[in-house]
């Protein structure tokens, strides 16, 4: 599962209120949510993001509200993977549950710059910054989460197993 795109870099503690502000939570339409993704910290994100691009966050990415609208908005905006030093726990499980690829890798989170072209192999956790040539290795997911991801999300996993 290879993905490649340009990096959009943000800082620590990117909360779900800035990923998708609550004033837009009166809908759950994916494309509509995506049209406001990140606008409170980066009003040009929606204009600039292209299919396959990658978000690089610092620590505690996705903290705050449990709104699944946040990973939904990111996924529907075309982002193919989020790399961060750490993820807030609800965002972490929401992403896995809806099939938004995420990788925890403090070194990559520190070093990848905005605009770098980055390729990611989700199954091995290998991250390559093609602009700098540097390769990183994210912690692989435990087998249970791999199964969830391979099934295509929680709904499919439960349908198959319960």
């Amino acid at each position, binding site marked *: 599962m290879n993905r490649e795109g340009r990096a959009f870099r943000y800082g620590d503690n990117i909360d779900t*209120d800035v990923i998708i502000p609550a004033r837009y939570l009166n809908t759950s339409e994916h494309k509509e949510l995506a049209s406001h993704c990140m606008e409170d910290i980066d009003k040009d994100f929606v204009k600039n993001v292209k299919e396959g691009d990658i978000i690089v966050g610092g620590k505690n990415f996705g903290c705050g509200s449990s709104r699944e609208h946040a990973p939904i908005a990111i996924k529907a905006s075309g982002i193919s993977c989020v790399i961060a030093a750490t993820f807030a726990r609800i965002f972490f499980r*929401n992403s896995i549950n809806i099939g938004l690829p995420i990788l925890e890798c403090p070194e990559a989170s520190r070093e990848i710059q905005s605009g770098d072209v980055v390729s990611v192999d989700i199954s091995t956790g290998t991250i390559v910054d093609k602009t700098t040539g540097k390769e990183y290795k994210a912690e692989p997911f435990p087998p249970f989460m791999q199964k969830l991801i391979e099934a295509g*999300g929680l709904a499919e996993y*439960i349908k198959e197993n319960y």
Partner: protein
Amino acid sequence: MPMTMTEKILAAAAGEKEVHPGQLIMANLDMVLGNDITSPVAIKEFPKFGKKNVFDKDRIALVPDHFTPNKDIKAAEQCACVRAFAKSESIKNYFEVGQAGVEHALLPEQGLVTAGDVIIGADSHTCTYGAVGAFSTGVGSTDMAAGMAIGKAWFKVPQTILFRLHGSFRPYVTGKDLILHIIGMIGVDGALYEAMEFAGEGVSSLSMDDRFTVSNMAVEAGAKNGIFPVDDKTLAYLKESGAKEPRIYQSDPDAVYDRIIDIDLGSIVPTVSYPHLPENTHPASDGAGIKIDQVVIGSCTNGRLSDLRAAASILKGRKVADGVRCIVIPATQKIWKEAMHEGLFDIFIDSGCVVSTPTCGPCLGGYMGILAKGERCVSTTNRNFVGRMGHTESEVYLASPYTAAASAVKGFIAAPEAL
């Protein structure tokens, strides 16, 4: 193997003799909760799980509280979606406007949560019910849908940080000041993926409302849950609320903790979190230079009766400062009625406050108190992120009801004891 109370509850719910931190488990759920923002997404997902009906119509709670009474047409459509689902699935605990309230004040009040329960809610502040000795945590809408379909959720058993509380609070210091103090100390990711357990002889001095406030904001330190031991106060509260029989789990004396932090309750002062993170804590007494435009007293964190009493004790015989709007929001209908009968509304209205019907409204920038560019609000809510209560250039300062009321009177951030 010795275990913490969180580990014991999770082990029982997973049908295991013991569990250890890091272990992935499937746990049986006692309650699955959703609101008007998160339930519509879950309801849309529900058919994908391949189950004809929900696992148990009595163990699901649907509480439209965020944008209700409906703030606009889209919000009304979302509530209609939740209402229709509740009807078609015969969900017993669906709370219509008129019975509803802010979910995390409502569920304990209605006796829907008890000690030893495992509860998930598609709302991050579901960790509130740790106050009654439950394992309770926030999840997203897909987890909620899965919970409704099969009555189970997957968890990674968390490590636990133990907070040993000693002594008792000084006057005007509350559970809100304690949890802000802790978040200021360990940071907004200080308990990431972990359980926060509160113990020590100081626990007995905390009221149930204080404990709800503390557990409520565990998520603001990144925690999975924030749990209190069950004592006489808990049992009395559960009995009064009509909750089902508590299952009491106690941490073993030799349970293994990731960290142990000792806190002297007597050393804590009225505390305020400055923008834009709950960890930016300062003593309220340092805020005199910070002029404010609005005060909000309410929410799942601080909209309970004792919170309203605290605010009223400050506002009695005083006036809200010129140029300040003070919005009081009792969290549930029961709290509203009790506050009214106690005469608290007379105090609020005479001092120049407005009293709203129960809603989460302004806390998340929904409605009923949105901030304009450059405005500042002292709020008893739980988050002060960029744009949380309105314009991205507005500011939210988190505080206790005492401090919020004192600030409303002064027109700037003020410690309650200074009045």
